[in-house]
Protein backbone atom coordinates (compact mmCIF):
# COMPACT_ATOMS: atom_id res chain seq x y z
CA UNK A 1 0.00 0.00 0.00
CA UNK A 2 2.75 2.47 1.01
CA UNK A 3 6.18 1.98 -0.40
CA UNK A 4 9.05 4.28 0.41
CA UNK A 5 12.09 3.50 -1.68
CA UNK A 6 15.65 4.72 -1.19
CA UNK A 7 14.55 7.97 0.29
CA UNK A 8 17.13 10.62 1.21
CA UNK A 9 16.37 14.00 2.68
CA UNK A 10 18.28 16.85 4.21
CA UNK A 11 17.93 20.18 5.96
CA UNK A 12 20.46 22.37 4.31
CA UNK A 13 23.77 20.69 4.99
CA UNK A 14 22.40 18.27 7.55
CA UNK A 15 21.59 14.92 5.98
CA UNK A 16 18.62 13.66 7.97
CA UNK A 17 17.68 10.57 5.94
CA UNK A 18 19.87 8.31 3.86
CA UNK A 19 18.55 5.68 1.52
CA UNK A 20 15.55 4.69 3.60
CA UNK A 21 13.19 1.99 2.39
CA UNK A 22 9.99 1.32 4.29
CA UNK A 23 6.88 -0.58 3.32
CA UNK A 24 3.41 -0.92 4.80
CA UNK A 25 0.61 -3.29 3.77
CA UNK A 26 -3.08 -2.48 3.92
CA UNK A 27 -4.43 -2.88 7.44
CA UNK A 28 -1.05 -3.10 9.14
CA UNK A 29 0.46 -1.18 11.96
CA UNK A 30 4.04 -0.39 11.09
CA UNK A 31 6.25 1.12 13.79
CA UNK A 32 9.37 3.14 13.40
CA UNK A 33 11.56 3.50 16.44
CA UNK A 34 14.83 5.25 17.01
CA UNK A 35 16.47 7.70 19.32
CA UNK A 36 16.25 11.46 19.28
CA UNK A 37 17.20 13.03 16.03
CA UNK A 38 17.33 9.71 14.19
CA UNK A 39 15.13 11.07 11.42
CA UNK A 40 11.76 9.58 12.23
CA UNK A 41 9.87 12.82 12.01
CA UNK A 42 11.75 13.68 8.86
CA UNK A 43 10.50 10.50 7.23
CA UNK A 44 6.90 11.34 8.05
CA UNK A 45 7.36 14.90 6.83
CA UNK A 46 8.59 13.55 3.51
CA UNK A 47 5.61 11.28 3.14
CA UNK A 48 3.11 13.98 3.94
CA UNK A 49 4.74 16.36 1.49
CA UNK A 50 6.05 18.92 3.94
CA UNK A 51 9.62 18.24 2.94
CA UNK A 52 10.88 17.55 -0.55
CA UNK A 53 13.17 14.53 -0.52
CA UNK A 54 16.55 14.81 -2.19
CA UNK A 55 16.07 11.48 -3.89
CA UNK A 56 13.93 8.39 -3.70
CA UNK A 57 10.33 7.50 -4.37
CA UNK A 58 7.18 7.43 -2.28
CA UNK A 59 4.41 5.26 -3.73
CA UNK A 60 0.93 5.03 -2.32
CA UNK A 61 -1.57 2.55 -3.80
CA UNK A 62 0.68 2.17 -6.77
CA UNK A 63 0.91 5.90 -7.53
CA UNK A 64 3.58 8.35 -6.51
CA UNK A 65 2.40 10.70 -3.74
CA UNK A 66 2.38 14.38 -4.59
CA UNK A 67 4.71 16.46 -2.48
CA UNK A 68 2.19 19.10 -1.48
CA UNK A 69 0.56 18.50 1.91
CA UNK A 70 -3.03 19.26 0.99
CA UNK A 71 -2.90 17.01 -2.04
CA UNK A 72 -1.51 14.19 0.04
CA UNK A 73 -4.49 14.49 2.36
CA UNK A 74 -6.80 14.24 -0.62
CA UNK A 75 -5.21 10.91 -1.44
CA UNK A 76 -6.16 9.64 1.99
CA UNK A 77 -2.91 10.02 3.91
CA UNK A 78 -3.07 12.02 7.13
CA UNK A 79 -0.16 13.09 9.29
CA UNK A 80 -0.73 13.76 13.00
CA UNK A 81 2.29 15.91 13.76
CA UNK A 82 4.71 15.67 16.62
CA UNK A 83 4.01 17.99 19.51
CA UNK A 84 0.24 18.21 19.09
CA UNK A 85 0.06 21.40 17.07
CA UNK A 86 -3.58 22.03 17.82
CA UNK A 87 -5.02 25.35 16.62
CA UNK A 88 -4.79 27.13 19.92
CA UNK A 89 -7.28 29.89 19.20
CA UNK A 90 -9.96 27.66 17.74
CA UNK A 91 -12.35 25.76 19.94
CA UNK A 92 -12.06 22.02 20.26
CA UNK A 93 -15.00 21.47 17.96
CA UNK A 94 -13.65 23.86 15.37
CA UNK A 95 -10.35 22.02 15.44
CA UNK A 96 -12.17 18.82 14.63
CA UNK A 97 -14.18 20.49 11.88
CA UNK A 98 -10.99 21.81 10.32
CA UNK A 99 -9.66 18.25 10.46
CA UNK A 100 -12.59 17.30 8.26
CA UNK A 101 -11.99 20.19 5.90
CA UNK A 102 -12.30 18.03 2.81
CA UNK A 103 -15.58 16.46 3.86
CA UNK A 104 -18.93 18.10 3.95
CA UNK A 105 -22.37 17.98 5.47
CA UNK A 106 -23.54 14.65 6.73
CA UNK A 107 -20.27 12.81 6.62
CA UNK A 108 -18.63 15.55 8.64
CA UNK A 109 -21.27 15.48 11.36
CA UNK A 110 -21.12 11.69 11.46
CA UNK A 111 -17.36 11.73 11.92
CA UNK A 112 -17.65 14.35 14.59
CA UNK A 113 -20.06 12.14 16.50
CA UNK A 114 -17.79 9.12 16.12
CA UNK A 115 -14.79 11.00 17.45
CA UNK A 116 -16.67 12.38 20.41
CA UNK A 117 -17.57 8.80 21.19
CA UNK A 118 -13.93 7.76 21.07
CA UNK A 119 -12.83 10.75 23.17
CA UNK A 120 -15.61 11.76 25.53
CA UNK A 121 -13.40 14.31 27.26
CA UNK A 122 -13.24 16.29 24.06
CA UNK A 123 -17.00 16.51 24.01
CA UNK A 124 -16.94 18.04 27.49
CA UNK A 125 -14.43 20.59 26.35
CA UNK A 126 -15.85 21.24 22.92
CA UNK A 127 -16.30 24.99 23.34
CA UNK A 128 -12.98 25.58 25.09
CA UNK A 129 -10.05 27.07 23.18
CA UNK A 130 -7.71 24.24 22.28
CA UNK A 131 -4.73 26.21 23.55
CA UNK A 132 -5.98 25.99 27.10
CA UNK A 133 -6.35 22.22 27.12
CA UNK A 134 -3.87 20.22 29.16
CA UNK A 135 -1.05 18.58 27.29
CA UNK A 136 -2.75 15.21 27.20
CA UNK A 137 -6.06 16.61 26.12
CA UNK A 138 -4.33 18.35 23.27
CA UNK A 139 -2.73 15.10 22.19
CA UNK A 140 -6.11 13.40 22.05
CA UNK A 141 -7.51 16.28 20.10
CA UNK A 142 -4.67 16.03 17.62
CA UNK A 143 -5.33 12.34 16.97
CA UNK A 144 -9.07 12.86 16.74
CA UNK A 145 -8.54 15.72 14.34
CA UNK A 146 -6.43 13.47 12.14
CA UNK A 147 -9.14 10.83 12.06
CA UNK A 148 -11.77 13.33 10.97
CA UNK A 149 -10.95 13.08 7.30
CA UNK A 150 -11.45 9.32 6.96
CA UNK A 151 -7.87 8.54 6.05
CA UNK A 152 -6.70 5.31 4.48
CA UNK A 153 -3.27 5.73 6.02
CA UNK A 154 -2.57 7.65 9.18
CA UNK A 155 0.92 8.75 10.21
CA UNK A 156 1.20 9.14 13.97
CA UNK A 157 4.25 10.95 15.33
CA UNK A 158 4.79 10.03 18.99
CA UNK A 159 1.13 9.84 19.92
CA UNK A 160 1.83 8.76 23.49
CA UNK A 161 4.03 11.74 24.26
CA UNK A 162 2.99 13.24 27.57
CA UNK A 163 0.01 11.00 28.10
CA UNK A 164 -0.93 9.38 31.37
CA UNK A 165 -0.24 5.62 31.42
CA UNK A 166 -3.93 4.86 31.42
CA UNK A 167 -4.44 7.06 28.42
CA UNK A 168 -1.41 5.60 26.70
CA UNK A 169 -3.14 2.27 26.98
CA UNK A 170 -6.31 3.79 25.65
CA UNK A 171 -4.46 5.33 22.74
CA UNK A 172 -2.88 2.01 21.91
CA UNK A 173 -6.22 0.31 22.07
CA UNK A 174 -7.45 3.01 19.79
CA UNK A 175 -4.64 2.45 17.35
CA UNK A 176 -5.59 -1.18 17.20
CA UNK A 177 -9.19 -0.15 16.69
CA UNK A 178 -8.10 2.11 13.87
CA UNK A 179 -6.36 -0.79 12.26
CA UNK A 180 -9.44 -2.94 12.66
CA UNK A 181 -11.48 -0.37 10.79
CA UNK A 182 -9.17 -0.98 7.86
CA UNK A 183 -6.93 2.04 8.19
CA UNK A 184 -3.22 1.52 7.88
CA UNK A 185 -1.09 3.05 10.62
CA UNK A 186 2.49 4.25 10.44
CA UNK A 187 3.57 4.80 14.00
CA UNK A 188 6.65 6.67 15.17
CA UNK A 189 7.43 6.17 18.84
CA UNK A 190 9.97 6.62 21.60
CA UNK A 191 7.93 4.30 23.73
CA UNK A 192 9.47 1.39 21.92
CA UNK A 193 8.06 -1.39 24.05
CA UNK A 194 4.46 -0.40 23.44
CA UNK A 195 4.98 0.28 19.81
CA UNK A 196 6.70 -2.99 19.15
CA UNK A 197 3.98 -4.78 21.09
CA UNK A 198 1.16 -3.87 18.82
CA UNK A 199 2.79 -3.56 15.45
CA UNK A 200 2.87 -6.00 12.59
CA UNK A 201 6.17 -4.79 11.34
CA UNK A 202 8.83 -2.47 12.72
CA UNK A 203 11.85 -0.57 11.55
CA UNK A 204 14.67 0.72 13.67
CA UNK A 205 16.17 3.91 12.36
CA UNK A 206 19.50 5.32 13.45
CA UNK A 207 21.30 8.37 12.16
CA UNK A 208 18.99 8.53 9.20
CA UNK A 209 19.46 4.93 8.11
CA UNK A 210 17.32 1.84 8.60
CA UNK A 211 19.29 -0.31 10.97
CA UNK A 212 17.00 -3.25 11.58
CA UNK A 213 13.65 -4.49 10.49
CA UNK A 214 11.36 -7.31 11.46
CA UNK A 215 8.07 -8.13 13.12
CA UNK A 216 7.31 -6.53 16.44
CA UNK A 217 8.11 -9.65 18.44
CA UNK A 218 11.37 -10.27 16.64
CA UNK A 219 12.64 -6.85 17.51
CA UNK A 220 11.34 -7.01 21.07
CA UNK A 221 13.52 -10.01 21.62
CA UNK A 222 16.54 -8.68 19.79
CA UNK A 223 19.43 -8.02 22.15
CA UNK A 224 20.48 -4.96 20.24
CA UNK A 225 17.07 -3.36 20.50
CA UNK A 226 16.73 -4.26 24.14
CA UNK A 227 19.96 -2.56 24.99
CA UNK A 228 19.48 0.59 23.01
CA UNK A 229 15.78 1.26 23.14
CA UNK A 230 14.13 -0.68 25.92
CA UNK A 231 16.37 0.48 28.71
CA UNK A 232 18.41 -2.69 29.30
Amino acid at each position, binding site marked *: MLKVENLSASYGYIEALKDVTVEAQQGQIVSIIGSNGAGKTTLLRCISGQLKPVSGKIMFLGEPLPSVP*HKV*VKKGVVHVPEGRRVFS*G*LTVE*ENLLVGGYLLSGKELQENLRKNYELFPILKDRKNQFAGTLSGGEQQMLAIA*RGLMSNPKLILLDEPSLGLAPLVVNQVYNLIEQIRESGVTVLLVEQNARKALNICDRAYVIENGRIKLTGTGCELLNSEEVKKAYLGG
Partner: protein
Amino acid sequence: MSLQIIINGLALGSVYAIIATGFSLIFNILKFSNFSHGALMTLSAFIGYFFAVTVNSSLLLVVAISMLAGGLVSCLGELVAFRKITLSNTSPIYFFVSSITLGTLYEGIVTIWVGPNFYNYPRFFETTVVKLGSIVISKSDLIMFISSCAALALLMLFIQKTKFGRALRSVSFDRETAGLMGIDVIRIIQLAFFLSGALAGLAGVFLGINYTLYPQLGNLVVKGFIASVIGGLGSVFGAVAGALLLGLTETLLINFAGSGYAPVFSFLIMLVFLLVRPQGIAGSNVQEKA
Protein backbone atom coordinates in the same frame (compact mmCIF):
# COMPACT_ATOMS: atom_id res chain seq x y z
CA MET B 1 -27.24 69.98 18.05
CA SER B 2 -25.54 67.39 20.20
CA LEU B 3 -27.39 64.67 18.34
CA GLN B 4 -25.97 66.15 15.18
CA ILE B 5 -22.50 65.83 16.64
CA ILE B 6 -23.08 62.20 17.41
CA ILE B 7 -24.34 61.61 13.90
CA ASN B 8 -21.27 63.35 12.50
CA GLY B 9 -19.10 61.22 14.75
CA LEU B 10 -20.72 58.03 13.57
CA ALA B 11 -20.41 59.16 9.98
CA LEU B 12 -16.70 59.76 10.43
CA GLY B 13 -16.49 56.48 12.31
CA SER B 14 -18.01 54.60 9.43
CA VAL B 15 -15.28 55.91 7.15
CA TYR B 16 -12.73 54.54 9.57
CA ALA B 17 -14.73 51.34 9.94
CA ILE B 18 -14.68 50.57 6.29
CA ILE B 19 -10.91 50.98 6.33
CA ALA B 20 -10.51 48.97 9.49
CA THR B 21 -12.46 45.90 8.35
CA GLY B 22 -10.11 45.03 5.52
CA PHE B 23 -7.14 45.94 7.64
CA SER B 24 -8.10 43.73 10.54
CA LEU B 25 -9.00 40.82 8.28
CA ILE B 26 -5.37 40.47 7.31
CA PHE B 27 -4.28 40.98 10.88
CA ASN B 28 -6.61 38.16 11.77
CA ILE B 29 -4.98 35.72 9.37
CA LEU B 30 -1.34 36.66 9.20
CA LYS B 31 -0.97 38.56 12.48
CA PHE B 32 0.49 41.71 11.04
CA SER B 33 -0.65 45.25 10.42
CA ASN B 34 -0.94 45.60 6.70
CA PHE B 35 0.10 49.15 6.06
CA SER B 36 -0.16 48.72 2.31
CA HIS B 37 -3.91 48.66 2.75
CA GLY B 38 -4.12 52.44 2.52
CA ALA B 39 -2.26 52.73 -0.74
CA LEU B 40 -4.28 49.84 -2.09
CA MET B 41 -7.45 51.80 -1.32
CA THR B 42 -6.07 54.69 -3.31
CA LEU B 43 -5.02 52.51 -6.19
CA SER B 44 -8.37 50.77 -6.51
CA ALA B 45 -10.20 54.06 -6.03
CA PHE B 46 -8.32 55.42 -9.02
CA ILE B 47 -9.14 52.36 -11.07
CA GLY B 48 -12.77 52.85 -10.14
CA TYR B 49 -12.51 56.52 -10.98
CA PHE B 50 -11.11 56.05 -14.43
CA PHE B 51 -13.72 53.41 -15.07
CA ALA B 52 -16.45 55.75 -13.90
CA VAL B 53 -15.36 58.66 -16.09
CA THR B 54 -14.73 56.63 -19.21
CA VAL B 55 -17.76 54.37 -19.09
CA ASN B 56 -20.12 56.71 -17.30
CA SER B 57 -21.55 53.88 -15.27
CA SER B 58 -23.68 53.50 -12.18
CA LEU B 59 -22.30 53.56 -8.67
CA LEU B 60 -22.93 49.87 -8.18
CA LEU B 61 -20.85 48.96 -11.20
CA VAL B 62 -18.03 51.26 -10.14
CA VAL B 63 -18.01 49.69 -6.70
CA ALA B 64 -17.93 46.23 -8.22
CA ILE B 65 -15.06 47.11 -10.53
CA SER B 66 -13.08 48.74 -7.73
CA MET B 67 -13.60 45.80 -5.44
CA LEU B 68 -12.54 43.39 -8.12
CA ALA B 69 -9.50 45.49 -8.96
CA GLY B 70 -8.62 45.85 -5.29
CA GLY B 71 -8.94 42.11 -4.79
CA LEU B 72 -6.77 41.27 -7.76
CA VAL B 73 -4.08 43.81 -6.97
CA SER B 74 -4.08 42.59 -3.40
CA CYS B 75 -3.47 39.03 -4.59
CA LEU B 76 -0.67 40.28 -6.77
CA GLY B 77 0.77 42.11 -3.79
CA GLU B 78 0.58 38.93 -1.78
CA LEU B 79 2.56 37.19 -4.47
CA VAL B 80 5.35 39.73 -4.71
CA ALA B 81 5.61 40.97 -1.16
CA PHE B 82 4.35 38.30 1.18
CA ARG B 83 4.42 34.86 -0.46
CA LYS B 84 8.09 34.22 0.26
CA ILE B 85 7.74 35.32 3.85
CA THR B 86 4.71 33.10 4.33
CA LEU B 87 6.56 30.11 3.00
CA SER B 88 9.65 30.67 5.08
CA ASN B 89 7.57 31.02 8.23
CA THR B 90 9.44 33.97 9.65
CA SER B 91 8.11 36.36 12.23
CA PRO B 92 5.15 38.65 11.43
CA ILE B 93 7.40 41.66 11.78
CA TYR B 94 8.71 40.90 8.30
CA PHE B 95 5.23 41.15 6.88
CA PHE B 96 4.88 44.51 8.53
CA VAL B 97 8.06 45.83 6.99
CA SER B 98 7.16 44.36 3.65
CA SER B 99 3.72 45.91 3.79
CA ILE B 100 5.01 49.40 4.43
CA THR B 101 7.32 49.04 1.47
CA LEU B 102 4.56 47.63 -0.70
CA GLY B 103 2.43 50.61 0.27
CA THR B 104 5.20 52.95 -0.83
CA LEU B 105 5.42 51.06 -4.09
CA TYR B 106 1.67 51.35 -4.75
CA GLU B 107 1.82 55.03 -3.92
CA GLY B 108 4.75 55.52 -6.26
CA ILE B 109 2.91 53.74 -9.04
CA VAL B 110 -0.18 55.86 -8.51
CA THR B 111 1.91 59.03 -8.53
CA ILE B 112 3.50 58.11 -11.82
CA TRP B 113 0.21 57.00 -13.27
CA VAL B 114 -2.07 59.87 -12.37
CA GLY B 115 0.42 62.65 -11.83
CA PRO B 116 0.18 65.11 -9.01
CA ASN B 117 -3.36 66.30 -9.70
CA PHE B 118 -6.56 65.91 -7.73
CA TYR B 119 -9.53 64.05 -9.03
CA ASN B 120 -13.15 64.04 -8.08
CA TYR B 121 -15.63 61.26 -8.62
CA PRO B 122 -18.61 62.16 -10.75
CA ARG B 123 -21.80 62.75 -8.78
CA PHE B 124 -23.81 59.63 -8.24
CA PHE B 125 -26.66 61.14 -6.23
CA GLU B 126 -28.80 64.12 -7.06
CA THR B 127 -29.22 65.32 -3.52
CA THR B 128 -26.29 64.90 -1.24
CA VAL B 129 -27.96 65.14 2.13
CA VAL B 130 -30.88 63.61 3.92
CA LYS B 131 -32.69 65.87 6.37
CA LEU B 132 -34.43 64.51 9.43
CA GLY B 133 -35.93 67.51 11.16
CA SER B 134 -32.98 69.67 12.10
CA ILE B 135 -30.52 66.84 11.62
CA VAL B 136 -28.51 66.62 8.45
CA ILE B 137 -27.02 63.38 7.29
CA SER B 138 -24.90 63.18 4.19
CA LYS B 139 -26.16 60.56 1.81
CA SER B 140 -22.75 59.09 1.11
CA ASP B 141 -22.08 58.82 4.85
CA LEU B 142 -25.31 56.95 5.22
CA ILE B 143 -24.50 54.57 2.39
CA MET B 144 -21.03 54.15 3.78
CA PHE B 145 -22.34 53.35 7.23
CA ILE B 146 -24.76 50.80 5.81
CA SER B 147 -22.18 49.21 3.57
CA SER B 148 -19.57 48.91 6.28
CA CYS B 149 -22.13 47.27 8.56
CA ALA B 150 -23.16 44.94 5.76
CA ALA B 151 -19.57 44.13 4.83
CA LEU B 152 -18.82 43.45 8.46
CA ALA B 153 -21.83 41.20 8.94
CA LEU B 154 -21.06 39.19 5.83
CA LEU B 155 -17.44 38.91 6.76
CA MET B 156 -18.20 37.77 10.30
CA LEU B 157 -20.61 35.17 9.01
CA PHE B 158 -18.04 34.01 6.54
CA ILE B 159 -15.25 33.77 9.08
CA GLN B 160 -17.22 32.26 11.92
CA LYS B 161 -19.60 29.93 10.18
CA THR B 162 -18.23 28.65 6.93
CA LYS B 163 -15.61 26.05 6.37
CA PHE B 164 -13.44 28.53 4.52
CA GLY B 165 -13.66 30.84 7.48
CA ARG B 166 -12.53 28.09 9.79
CA ALA B 167 -9.73 27.22 7.42
CA LEU B 168 -8.74 30.88 7.37
CA ARG B 169 -8.52 30.96 11.11
CA SER B 170 -6.64 27.71 11.38
CA VAL B 171 -4.12 29.01 8.87
CA SER B 172 -3.74 32.03 11.09
CA PHE B 173 -2.63 29.87 13.97
CA ASP B 174 -0.43 27.31 12.32
CA ARG B 175 0.10 27.26 8.61
CA GLU B 176 2.06 24.04 8.46
CA THR B 177 -0.48 22.03 10.41
CA ALA B 178 -3.33 23.56 8.47
CA GLY B 179 -1.72 22.10 5.38
CA LEU B 180 -1.78 18.69 7.03
CA MET B 181 -5.55 19.00 7.35
CA GLY B 182 -5.92 19.11 3.60
CA ILE B 183 -6.14 22.88 3.42
CA ASP B 184 -4.44 24.54 0.49
CA VAL B 185 -2.75 27.18 2.59
CA ILE B 186 -1.64 29.45 -0.21
CA ARG B 187 -5.14 29.48 -1.68
CA ILE B 188 -6.61 30.38 1.67
CA ILE B 189 -4.15 33.19 2.17
CA GLN B 190 -4.92 34.44 -1.30
CA LEU B 191 -8.58 34.32 -0.42
CA ALA B 192 -7.92 36.47 2.62
CA PHE B 193 -5.95 38.94 0.55
CA PHE B 194 -8.61 39.00 -2.10
CA LEU B 195 -11.30 39.74 0.44
CA SER B 196 -9.28 42.42 2.14
CA GLY B 197 -8.35 43.92 -1.23
CA ALA B 198 -12.01 43.96 -2.22
CA LEU B 199 -12.81 45.76 1.02
CA ALA B 200 -10.03 48.22 0.21
CA GLY B 201 -11.70 48.79 -3.16
CA LEU B 202 -15.01 49.43 -1.46
CA ALA B 203 -13.41 51.81 1.00
CA GLY B 204 -11.51 53.51 -1.81
CA VAL B 205 -14.62 54.34 -3.81
CA PHE B 206 -16.36 55.83 -0.80
CA LEU B 207 -13.31 57.81 0.20
CA GLY B 208 -13.13 59.02 -3.37
CA ILE B 209 -16.78 60.04 -3.36
CA ASN B 210 -16.61 61.67 0.03
CA TYR B 211 -13.19 63.20 -0.35
CA THR B 212 -10.92 64.23 -3.14
CA LEU B 213 -8.85 61.59 -4.84
CA TYR B 214 -5.07 62.07 -4.72
CA PRO B 215 -2.07 59.77 -4.39
CA GLN B 216 -1.55 60.22 -0.65
CA LEU B 217 -5.18 59.55 0.24
CA GLY B 218 -4.10 56.21 1.68
CA ASN B 219 -2.43 57.88 4.65
CA LEU B 220 -5.81 57.55 6.25
CA VAL B 221 -4.96 53.90 6.89
CA VAL B 222 -3.45 55.02 10.18
CA LYS B 223 -6.96 55.63 11.46
CA GLY B 224 -7.92 52.10 10.50
CA PHE B 225 -4.89 50.87 12.39
CA ILE B 226 -5.76 52.79 15.54
CA ALA B 227 -9.38 51.65 15.30
CA SER B 228 -8.48 48.02 15.00
CA VAL B 229 -6.13 48.15 17.95
CA ILE B 230 -8.70 49.85 20.10
CA GLY B 231 -11.12 47.17 18.99
CA GLY B 232 -8.76 44.38 19.90
CA LEU B 233 -6.29 43.39 17.22
CA GLY B 234 -7.59 40.84 14.83
CA SER B 235 -11.21 41.01 15.76
CA VAL B 236 -13.14 42.28 12.78
CA PHE B 237 -16.12 43.14 14.90
CA GLY B 238 -13.89 44.95 17.36
CA ALA B 239 -12.34 46.91 14.54
CA VAL B 240 -15.70 48.30 13.51
CA ALA B 241 -16.66 49.07 17.08
CA GLY B 242 -13.27 50.70 17.58
CA ALA B 243 -13.68 52.74 14.42
CA LEU B 244 -17.05 54.10 15.44
CA LEU B 245 -15.70 54.89 18.87
CA LEU B 246 -12.69 56.64 17.35
CA GLY B 247 -14.87 58.72 15.03
CA LEU B 248 -17.13 59.68 17.86
CA THR B 249 -14.27 60.59 20.18
CA GLU B 250 -12.53 62.69 17.57
CA THR B 251 -15.68 64.58 16.75
CA LEU B 252 -16.48 65.22 20.37
CA LEU B 253 -12.92 66.33 21.04
CA ILE B 254 -12.98 68.69 18.10
CA ASN B 255 -16.20 70.13 19.33
CA PHE B 256 -15.25 70.57 22.94
CA ALA B 257 -11.48 70.82 23.00
CA GLY B 258 -10.66 72.11 19.54
CA SER B 259 -8.83 70.22 16.85
CA GLY B 260 -5.40 71.47 17.92
CA TYR B 261 -5.29 69.43 21.07
CA ALA B 262 -7.43 66.56 19.77
CA PRO B 263 -4.47 64.26 19.04
CA VAL B 264 -3.09 64.91 22.50
CA PHE B 265 -6.37 64.01 24.13
CA SER B 266 -6.80 61.01 21.82
CA PHE B 267 -3.42 59.82 22.95
CA LEU B 268 -4.27 60.23 26.61
CA ILE B 269 -7.61 58.49 26.17
CA MET B 270 -5.87 55.67 24.36
CA LEU B 271 -3.36 55.27 27.19
CA VAL B 272 -6.09 55.11 29.78
CA PHE B 273 -8.05 52.71 27.63
CA LEU B 274 -5.08 50.41 27.21
CA LEU B 275 -4.44 50.44 30.93
CA VAL B 276 -8.02 49.62 31.78
CA ARG B 277 -8.74 47.25 28.96
CA PRO B 278 -5.51 46.15 27.32
CA GLN B 279 -7.15 43.46 25.23
CA GLY B 280 -9.28 45.99 23.34
CA ILE B 281 -13.03 46.12 23.05
CA ALA B 282 -13.61 42.69 21.62
CA GLY B 283 -10.39 40.93 22.53
CA SER B 284 -10.88 38.02 24.87
CA ASN B 285 -8.58 37.73 27.79
CA VAL B 286 -6.88 34.39 27.26
CA GLN B 287 -4.00 33.96 29.63
CA GLU B 288 -0.86 32.49 28.23
CA LYS B 289 -0.37 28.93 29.36
CA ALA B 290 3.10 27.70 30.18
